[in-house]
């Protein structure tokens, strides 16, 4: 145990008293020798203590934060695309109140519309949203390589926008003019964060984030 850092499960077991006997002794020995793990352990203790403090956010601060969230939506769209065994669920940030369980239950058997799409056979799926007076359509294409997807971007009215595409923090593709090239050449894994920044004359006009999640 001393050779590698303790993981969170081991730290929690020690902290909660669930670790007993030789496991407890070994954990304690490691904590004594490893400054990093001792720091993580104490951070965990402090965080748990502070989190249980019960202090509520003042109403004024809560309202200000929520207003900032609403403002963010003016120039940014976030969409979660969850690939399940027999369907794809799409959650979008431009719905007023989003309940994960509720939304899933409400739309679970719909086979049309933007929020959930059944797919006995995989085909392209389009998600359209209006942002900054433009209709943006993202089309997700299944690929022969099953764990990857392709993506096409369409902005209406057509306009010479530049698109910078980032996947999990790494820039993977830049399109100089999406009115001339709508299909991205990158094949994306079905799990990760896909960010698309749309620019006009080097200024960001709006951004879209697709959170891709591969489920059961």
């Amino acid at each position: 145990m001393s050779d590698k850092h303790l993981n969170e499960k081991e730290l929690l077991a020690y902290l909660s008293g669930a670790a007993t006997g030789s496991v407890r002794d070994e954990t304690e020995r490691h904590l004594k020798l490893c400054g990093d793990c001792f720091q993580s352990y104490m951070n965990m203790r402090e965080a748990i203590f502070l989190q249980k403090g019960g202090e509520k956010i003042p109403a004024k601060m809560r309202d200000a934060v929520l207003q900032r969230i609403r403002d963010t939506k003016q120039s940014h769209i976030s969409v979660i695309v969850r690939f399940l065994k027999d369907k794809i669920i799409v959650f979008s940030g431009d719905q007023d109140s989003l309940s994960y369980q509720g939304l899933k239950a409400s739309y679970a058997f719909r086979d049309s519309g933007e929020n959930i799409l059944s797919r006995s056979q995989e085909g392209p799926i389009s998600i359209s949203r209006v942002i900054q007076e433009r209709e943006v359509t993202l089309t997700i294409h299944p690929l022969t390589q099953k764990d990857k997807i392709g993506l096409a971007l369409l902005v209406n009215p057509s306009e010479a926008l530049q698109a910078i595409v980032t996947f999990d923090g790494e820039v993977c593709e830049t399109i100089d003019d999406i009115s001339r090239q709508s299909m991205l050449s990158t094949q994306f894994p079905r799990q990760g964060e896909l960010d698309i920044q749309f620019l006009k004359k080097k200024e960001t006009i709006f951004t879209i984030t697709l959170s891709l999640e591969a489920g059961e």
Partner: protein
Amino acid sequence: MFTNADIRPFIAECCIGSETAWNRFFELFHPLIAGTVRKAVSYDHDDIVQTVYCKLIGNNYGLLRKFRGESFYELLAYIRQIAFNTAANQRRSQGAEKARITSIEDFMSLLSSEYDPEARYLQTEVSREVMSAVAALDIKYREPVYLLMQGYKHKEIAGILGVPIDTASTRIRRAYAKLEENLKEFTVN
């Protein structure tokens, strides 16, 4: 309480700006954010807490989207670190001076001083010899010394360690004695 399976969907919903998810976020994490800021600085708590939220929302929820953990406790630690870093940056921007602790007298004075939110900031400037003496303590004595260095009071230390306050005070007293013994074995500049 969240299960680990709830974490990724919860983060994703916060990142799409779901107000339902954010109200849950406030319930779960505001005490942690506010408490961390209060421990780190002695002024402008509300402004700094608000700055923490701005950071979490800013850059299209960039910090939240960077979270790669899978469990509630990892998320707790992650949020706490963001709150702490924000407060520390605020201190730096105010040009706060660091004190350097190099002697046993200074160190014991720090530990026994009245609650001082800046104590955490001093920690990085405690000399290697003093830190070595602390590191040589058994875990049950090192825990309260570490928390004293963070500026926690005895009652809070008892809460964090999950022991009665008398037990915490006894451990602190014994920790002092052991620390003095340990420090004799180290060269103090």
